[in-house]
């Protein structure tokens, strides 16, 4: 074991505190503080039932339906097909069977798992959090180890409240300099993924650090950590600081009174010590980051909006060239085209990456007093975000621009609730994946920030938001 007095990274401190059975070099059995689940969990429940097991600590599990929920109506019957409605009902039944606290669809606190964890104060610094969803990395923004797992692992967590895990290597990404105007958290993380690649952080737990990261609001940090998985990382995290603590203070599930003080004392010991060793470190010049969009079918296919569609012929590696050619064919794009010449068919503002109140404000600031040239939907991340947006009048801005204002859920991000992008349709999307078929068979996705999506809506083309901002 390492010298206990040696400087340690945030990740190491939390990991060490959760090890139940240590196996040098192999997986360790670690305790899981919170497990958050959605409708996809039915496989795990079938597994438990098949074994005659029940959740061991249902009070440390939390459930919410998000992936399949309708976004125009709050009853399962509002779903477009009976099969989808059944997914939501089965979920509720499983929650009741397991005695698991959950927000049902009609609850105003319902929303996307990774939105409601932080929003409710279920997500706290220093925890281990699992969820059977890859974007669990989002929640690491509060200084916690949060990672996605599969259904077998989910059944294991429910049955034992533990998990066998190989400790990932640690990777610190420092973003130096200052963010320029019009540059949002989404641009920061897309630039990071572009730099290190879609598999660039595979096997690592990433800690984001440096002045640009520290200067982000907690909501923006959630956006950055959200897309850690798009670089292959097991998790992403940011050291908790005063911004984190004031964000959490008073949240429904956050500790109160003397417990808050105790928690706070502990949380302040968590940030990475001076001199701690990481397995890998890189620095990225934050001042050079521009508003960014994707052109291909992997989040690593990102470029500053001033760029042009790349030419696969210039890629020497045959396999990489083939991948780029297939991506351009799927996206219906010609090499050399200016990104700002790409016309879009619709816009989607939502998803666990960008559906918090700050995201909706950023989009509304661009759309205010303007019309959208294309159809589109705005889907808040939770019922509470929806209420907050309506209290500020953001819904009116969206509706007056010609966009639809919907109820909370994953919606067009993964298109399994019936909100889909049509074949060969091009969508400016604030979500996190531009994969082949992600938003529907044949759908073409360009990822970008909420402000950039709003700008694209206004002009009907991919657009540099800096041209529209402040006008």
């Amino acid at each position, binding site marked *: 074991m390492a010298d206990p007095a040696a400087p340690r990274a945030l990740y190491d401190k939390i990991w060490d505190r959760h090890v139940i059975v240590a196996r040098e070099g192999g997986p360790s059995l670690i305790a899981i503080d919170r497990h958050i689940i959605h409708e996809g969990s039915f496989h795990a429940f079938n597994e438990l039932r098949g074994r005659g097991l029940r959740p061991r600590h249902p009070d440390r599990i939390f459930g919410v339906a998000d992936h399949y929920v309708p976004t125009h109506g709050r009853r399962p019957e509002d779903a477009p097909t009976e099969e989808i409605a059944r997914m939501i009902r089965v979920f509720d039944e499983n929650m009741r069977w397991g005695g698991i606290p959950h927000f049902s669809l009609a609850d105003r606190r319902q929303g996307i798992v990774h939105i409601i964890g932080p929003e409710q104060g279920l997500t706290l610094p220093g925890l281990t959090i699992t969820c059977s969803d890859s974007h669990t990395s989002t929640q690491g923004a509060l200084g916690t180890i949060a990672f996605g797992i599969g259904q077998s692992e989910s059944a294991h967590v429910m049955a034992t409240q533990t998990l066998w895990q190989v400790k990932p290597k640690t990777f610190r990404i420092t973003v130096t300099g200052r963010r320029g105007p019009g540059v949002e958290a989404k641009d920061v993380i897309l630039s990071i993924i572009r730099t290190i690649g879609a598999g660039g952080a595979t096997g690592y737990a990433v800690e984001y650090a440096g002045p640009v990261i520290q200067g982000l609001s907690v909501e923006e940090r959630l956006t950055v950590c959200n897309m850690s998985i798009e670089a292959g990382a097991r998790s992403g995290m940011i050291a908790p600081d005063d911004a984190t603590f004031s964000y959490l203070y008073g949240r429904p599930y956050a500790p109160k009174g003397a417990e808050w003080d105790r928690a706070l004392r502990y949380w302040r010991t968590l940030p990475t010590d001076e001199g701690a060793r990481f397995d890998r470190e890189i620095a990225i010049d934050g001042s050079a980051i521009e508003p960014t969009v994707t052109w291909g079918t992997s989040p690593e296919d990102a470029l500053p909006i001033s760029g042009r569609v790349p030419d696969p012929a210039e890629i020497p590696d045959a396999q990489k060239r083939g*991948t780029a050619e297939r991506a351009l064919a799927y996206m219906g794009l010609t090499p050399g085209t200016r990104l700002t010449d790409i016309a879009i068919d619709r816009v989607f503002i939502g998803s666990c990456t960008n559906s918090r109140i700050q995201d909706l404000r950023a989009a509304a600031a661009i759309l205010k007093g303007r019309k959208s040239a294309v159809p589109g939907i705005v889907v808040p991340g939770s019922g509470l975000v929806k209420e907050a947006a309506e209290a500020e009048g953001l819904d009116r801005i969206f509706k007056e621009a010609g966009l639809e204002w919907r109820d909370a859920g994953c919606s067009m991000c993964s298109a399994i609730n019936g909100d889909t992008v049509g074949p060969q349709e091009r969508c400016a999307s604030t979500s996190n994946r531009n994969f082949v078929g992600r938003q529907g068979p044949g759908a073409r996705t360009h990822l970008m920030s909420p402000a950039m999506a709003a700008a694209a809506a206004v002009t009907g083309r991919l657009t540099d938001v800096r041209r529209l901002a402040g006008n």
Partner: protein
Amino acid sequence: MEPFIRLTGIAAPIEGRNIDTDQILPARFLKADRAKGYGQYFFHDARFDGEGREKPDFVLNREPFRHATIVVTDDNFGCGSSREGAVYALHDFGVRAVLAPSFGDIFYNNCLKNGVVPVRLERGIVTGLLESLKDAPRPEVTVDLEALEVVLPDGARHAFTLDPFWRECLMKGVDEIQLTLGYLDRIEAFEGGYHREMTWLRPQAGPVP
């Protein structure tokens, strides 16, 4: 989980980097009941056109690769969504081992839980293999978990590594939940001390803001 010791079988070359789990199992099939099998959904949108007809160009629709029990592919295979259904689809199609330079992390773990062996090999070996499999007379590969090596159609042998714990689980077909419940004393001892210290940790709902 069925034990895996060694397997010799048809290896299908599936080209492309960053093949995500949405491609391996399109999201609309996630609702399906596992009892009916997921094999029909494996790479569904690459295998079938809008009318459900096979696309003749796709490798898994060609002989002999439609009988593949091994898949060879490129960097970062199985990245993206955590959906274990991607591994159910692969498994139920009949595939029991995947060779690639690197894998999506969650996909890799999901393979281990379903008796599918993920084999990491140097990219140079994999890209050569992707080419040579296309017109090899017998595109067969052997994955030997006991010897920790693969044998390629040209007879070349390459060692690979797999964590000893997971290797043992795969070779014995260990039931992991059962295994962990065997540690219940240690888990409870840990939890006692941990929760005395972290008194603030129990989630207790307060008022809605």
